[in-house]
Structure formats: structure tokens, C-alpha cells
């Protein structure tokens, strides 16, 4: 229910924002200098764009509630089909990106906590900070340059690390890894200072085992919730990543449809993103509940 409300708010906001900021879609549609004013008017009428904004909005909402996202202004194709075509590419990128984010995040976080007072730990913490700070647009282009440089010496690498999935997913995953690393590190450092760790140490359990077995478990629930939330941010990150790496997907579909004034598509993608965002919040809660026995006991 809450999810639907969020989706409704996001879609309504998009509906009005696009029209207020970007004006007349028919103007963009016919921006070729050949049509006469009468022809522009008649096209506007036949696309139902001559009705007052509120009427257009109500029509749109009615369709939306029935699961009908409308048709593209440019191609008369159903928006749901246009989106379905691009969805798999974005899901593949986001899932691979998320897996890598969790992997990088855990590695960096654990290293930073384990070697807290040595150069390796400080380096891991710095890298995590850098990962959060650098925008995907920057790391993406840098990774392409590095990739081209490596390619000169290992031409065969193009098969594994091609622009198609692994390279963009790494860039995307890296950008989300920073936040995860921080949470893991903070969680570990905190649990290492708790009295039960002292007890474990007194029983002669080694530092490595204490860290990875005893301390990591209480540090995981917040990291898991964060990862689920990061999934939603990854979705936003795909917009830039797909453009830099010339990959198909929803991100580029969204940007193109906004630039070209194809509003029904833009609204559809935003609605999906809103639903996805809400879903990832719910999943985050469920995961936290499953992982952390303390939550189960209190409820």
C-alpha cells in the first residue's frame, strides 16, 4: 500500500514536472521545420494533447490503475512493451553490480577493520571513501581508458571484461561498495570492542576467527539492509553507466525519452523505478528480520 502511494506520488510528480519544465511534446515531435501551424494543431488533437492538463492527468491515472501505461508518442507502441524490451539488460547490470558491490564492500570493510592500524587497513578505508566520492561518470571513463590500455597487451581480455557487462558492472558495483564497506567496518570495530569478544579472546580464539565468525555476524544486518537500499541507488547509477558504456537498458530509455519528449515512456520508467525502490525497502526489512535473531525475539 505504502509502495503504491510512493509510486503514485513519483509518477504524478513526473507527469507534471515533465510538462511544466519541458512544455509541448508536439513541438519536439515535429521539430523539423516543415509542418504548418494547422498540421501541428491537428496532430496535437489526435494525440489527445489539446485537453487541459488535469483531464490528461486523470486519463493517465485511469490507465495507470488498470496497468495500462499508454503508448509512445513517437512510435504508437505500448509503453509496457518498450520497457519490457529494456528491462533484462538493466536487471543483469544491476544484479551483477550489486553482487560486486557486496563483494567489494565486504573485502574493503573487513580489511579496514582487521588491519585497522596498518597501512593495508588505512588503504582499504581510503579506497572505500574514494568509491563513495567518485561519480560513476568519472570512474566509467577512467575504466574504459585503463581497459583500452590493458587491451594493447592482452587483446584476449576483451572477451571476459568486455564493455557489455563485467566492466560496467564493476564500475557500478565499486560506486556502491564504499557505503557497504563503511558499515561493515564500523560494525566490526564496534563488536570487536564488546565484552563478549574479550571473552572469546580469553578462550584463546584467534583474531581472524573472532573477526570473521563472531564479530561479522552482528555487523551483517545493517550491511544487508544497506545493500538492499543500495540496489535502489544502483538503479539510478545505471542511467550514467549505460550511457558511458553504450549499453542498452532502462536508464538510457529514460534519458532519451525525456530528451525527445516521449512522456508516456518516461512516466512508465519512473513508475517502475518507484515500485522497485519501494520493493527494495521491503526486502531490506525482511532480510534484516531473517538475519538478526534479536529482531525476531522482540517481536
Amino acid at each position, binding site marked *: 500500500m505504502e509502495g503504491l502511494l510512493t509510486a503514485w506520488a513519483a509518477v504524478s510528480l513526473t507527469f507534471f514536472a515533465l510538462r511544466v519544465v519541458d512544455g509541448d511534446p508536439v*513541438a519536439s515531435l515535429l521539430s523539423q521545420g516543415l509542418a504548418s501551424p494547422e498540421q501541428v494543431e491537428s496532430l496535437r488533437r489526435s494525440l489527445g494533447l489539446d485537453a487541459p492538463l488535469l483531464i490528461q492527468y486523470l486519463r493517465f491515472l485511469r490507465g495507470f490503475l488498470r496497468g495500462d501505461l499508454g503508448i509512445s508518442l513517437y512510435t504508437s507502441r505500448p509503453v509496457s512493451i518498450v520497457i519490457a524490451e529494456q528491462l533484462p539488460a538493466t536487471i543483469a547490470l544491476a544484479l551483477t553490480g550489486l553482487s560486486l558491490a557486496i563483494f567489494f564492500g565486504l573485502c574493503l570493510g573487513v580489511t579496514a577493520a582487521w588491519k585497522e592500524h596498518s597501512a593495508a587497513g588505512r588503504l582499504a578505508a581510503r579506497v572505500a571513501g574514494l568509491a563513495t566520492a567518485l561519480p560513476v561518470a568519472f570512474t566509467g571513463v577512467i575504466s574504459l581508458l585503463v581497459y583500452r590500455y590493458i587491451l594493447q597487451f592482452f587483446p584476449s581480455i576483451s572477451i571476459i571484461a568486455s564493455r557489455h557487462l563485467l566492466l560496467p558492472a564493476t564500475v557500478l558495483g565499486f560506486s556502491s561498495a564504499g557505503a557497504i564497506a563503511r558499515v561493515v567496518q564500523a560494525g566490526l570495530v564496534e563488536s570487536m570492542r564488546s565484552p563478549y569478544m574479550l571473552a572469546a579472546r580469553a578462550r584463546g580464539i584467534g583474531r581472524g576467527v573472532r573477526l570473521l565468525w563472531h564479530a561479522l555476524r552482528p555487523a551483517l544486518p545493517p550491511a544487508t539492509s544497506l545493500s538492499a537500499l543500495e540496489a535502489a541507488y544502483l538503479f539510478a547509477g545505471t542511467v550514467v553507466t549505460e550511457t*558511458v558504456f553504450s549499453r542498452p537498458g532502462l536508464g538510457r530509455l529514460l534519458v*532519451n525519452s525525456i530528451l525527445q519528449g516521449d512522456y508516456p515512456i518516461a512516466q512508465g520508467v519512473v513508475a517502475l523505478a518507484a515500485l522497485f525502490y519501494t520493493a527494495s525497502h521491503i526486502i531490506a526489512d525482511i532480510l534484516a528480520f531473517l538475519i538478526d535473531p534479536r529482531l525476531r525475539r522482540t517481536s
Partner: protein
Amino acid sequence: MKSRLQYLTLITLVFSLIFLSIAACSTGPEETSTLVYGLTLAPSGIDPHLNASSELGIPLRSVYDTLVFLNPDTGKFVPGLADNWTISPDGLTYIFTLRRNVIFHDGTPFNAQAVLANLDRICDPNNHSQKAVFMLGPLEEVEIIDDYTVAIHLSEPYAPLLDSLSDVYLGMASPTAFETWGPAEYQFHQVGTGPYRFVEYIPIDHLTVDRNPDYAWAPSIYHQPQADIENIIFRFYEDSSTRALALESGEIDILGEVPPHDAARLSVDADFTLYPISIPGQPMQFFFNTQLSPTDDVIVRRALIHAVDRSYAVNTVFGVYSVVAHSPFSASAFNLESQDLILDYDPTKAEALLEAAGWTDEDGDGIRSKNNIPLELRIVSPTWGSNPEVTQLIRADWETIGARVILEIAPGFGPLKEAQTQGEYHAIGINFFGTDPDLLRSFFSSNGLYNWTGFTDPEQDQLLLQAAQTSLDPEERLRLYQQFVSDVQEEALLLPIRFYVNLVVASKRVEGLHFSAQGWYPILIDLRITH
């Protein structure tokens, strides 16, 4: 200790296996008859009859043939699917004799019925054609005289008709195919008669065409009778900063709209060739608003043109590949520039003109004013095509001669049109491409959709209409446009910057690259790959 060693061995083993398998894959036979062509924009729709993107013609110009073709060198029309044609003395009827034994890629025969079905499809209001229908102008009726003769009747003379019929938007598609698939889905199943067949289109990802082995009706502008390269895959590279990288990593063989600094670097690279291709149409330009003070004064408009160092701007933003434009239109058959009316960079003259028009620095603050109204100029720039960079330089030049300049960047066509409708601008940028100067009628006739100068002159309207209707005498038509352009230059209605030059970079292994008269479309049939 032992376990660590075991791990190490395992890891080494796995990695060497991966690398071995990769090495095995990469030594496979190289596919040389496939070419990868980079597109720079993923269009919202690629049905030439219904959509308007200029990018769609890059692959599809070779999927479709047109009734006539425009020779890029001479600007003359040559036979295509029509063997010959006649224009009635009143300019109202065009009769085309069609070529026989032409078949579409799906086996449908090409004939007069097919021409009628194509034009009907374009004109059907339910199909919402965004460009093709407007290119047909005052089309009244298409009449089938016999199986291979078709007449196009117009309600008034319309000289650009042949030009329209030579463009990919009026390419002849198989009626069987578009009737089967309908307006929304036909774009994924396009069928023409051209040297390449449409294979597959996955939006935002790629479009594939393959060679049509039955092609036997190449127009004279094609150098080869049949295509050489088996498959051509088109991929989309929208981010301009990564285009050169895609070429250098060998992902693609040909790519247009390479940024000038990358083009300069690649032009001296032994692996690449740079093709600077002039695109016919309007230059990058800024229209002066003649309805708003101070640009309602022709002296002020002239001063503002003299004030801008355009060669510096063009060199800075576009590199050495572009030259300054002086006229509002350019195409191979329409060289309209009038040399004696060129307003060159001359800031001293600009200031003298402003003084003469009464704009002086009354209070010594560096800003000119007249009757206590400061010389304030509002310039609206589109966000695309380096317009903002050029606008910055224009602002600096106008500030030098004592104006206060407000710069507004419109983030899309919608906002640009919005700003224009509000009318609060002194200069606004917009330009379109095209091979026929009738395009100017929308911009300069009093009731034109793009009359953004607000300038109205019945004589000018008459001149443009007459030029549009001079169907039989191309030389007379050219003279009328030359007359029109010198009027526009006299009135200083616009500040032209440069004509578009598409910087296309191709790998050295590609030979025979040349382009259609529209500039954007490569003649794919003539491409060859050298070994």
C-alpha cells in the same frame, strides 16, 4: 602452511585455465565481411515514413530505394525506382515511369500499386507521420495510370517534390510488410528494395542489415552494382566522450560526430581516416527578434553581427574543420552566399554603428544606454550541438562593445519553443538540415511556424512562395533564392555561425566511404574491407 600452498596451486590452475580458454577463442578465424558502424543517437522510432530522426537514414538509406536520387556532386536528380519522369507545364502533375522487374526483399513486386500504397500510408492521419507527410507538401492525389506509370497531382506547384522523393523518408517499402505488421511494429520488420536487407533491430542496442544478393537496380550515384560487405551492424554511441575510445579499441569501424579534438588526434593516427562531411541545410545561427527593442533596429543588428569574432568562435569550438557561415542556407546545388553583403568582424565599426543609432555610454559605467534605457540583450541558446559554448563567446564579444548580456540555455526543444513563445529574447538559436531551400519558408515568411525573427514583409513572402513554385526552371529558382538571401543579409536578420561538418572517422581497413546528398547517410553499397 600446506593448505595455503594448496590454495595457491588451485588458484593458479583456475586462472591458467581461464586464460587458455580465452586464448583458444580469440585465435578463431576473423570475420572480415562484417562491419560495425557507430550511430550517435538512439532514435525513438526508426520508421522512415512515420519518424523524423536523421539517424535512422544511416542504416535505412541502403534498405530502401527512392523514386529518384539526388547526385551529391551535381545537385541534379537521377533515376532510381523511376526510370524517368515528366512535370506538367503548370507544375501540378508529375508522371513517373517505374522501373520494371524490381522486387522487394520479401518477394513482393514493385509497381504503381506499391507507390500508391506507400504514399497512402504516409498521408494516413492515423499514422501520425512526423516528417514524410510534410515533405509531400500540397499533395492532392496519386493516380495509377498503368502498372508501371504513376501520376502525382498537386493542388499547387511545389518545386521541392523531387527533393522530397529522393530522401529516405519517402523510400519505397513493401506494402505486404507494412500491412502485415501495422504502424507500430513495422519498424522492426522493414522491407525495401535496397542493396541491404533489414535483419534485426533491438532498440538502444543494435540494428543489423545484410547484403541483398538480388539487387540489380543500383542508381548511377552508386559506384558498385552490388554490395561487397556481407553484414553491417549498427550500434549506438551516445556519449561523445567515449566515441574515440570505441574506435581505438576496435569495437567499431566507422563512427560519426567525433568531437573535434578527438578527430584531430585520430586524423594523424595511421590506423584511421578522418572524413569531414558538410551537411546541407541551415548553419548554426541566431535569429534577431525584430519585434523587441533594441534589435528592432537594423543598425543595431548589423552592429551586433560586426561585433562577433566568428572565426575565433568557430576555430575555438569546432577546430579547423569548419569555416564561418554568412548565408542562411547551403547545399550543393544552392550556393546562396552573397559576397558583397558579408558583415565581417569589426568591433570598431560595431561601436560606431551603435553610437550612430543613439546607444552611448551616458553615465560612464561601461554599459551603453539610450534615453536612460540600458543596452540589454537576452540571448537564448539550445543546449545541443555546442550552441552554449558559441553563445558564451558571443556574449563576451557583445559585452566588449558595451552591452549587458543575459544568457539563457534552453534544456531541450520544448523549453526553447517556450522561450520563443514568450517573446522575451533578442537572439535565439535554432537550425535544421535539409537539401532544399524551401525550408527557409518556415523561417522567413510572415506566418511561418519558425518565424522567430518576427520580421514580416509581403514582398519577401511572395519571393519565397514564387521560389517554392518554380518547378521547371532550377536556374530561375536559384536566382530567386539568391535574391532572397541578399534581402536577408541586407536586413541583418540573423547571425550565422558555421555550417555543420560531421566528423566521421573510419578505420583504415574500410575503403570506398562516401555519403549521400543529405550528408548524413553513407552509401553502404560501395564500402569495402581491405585485408
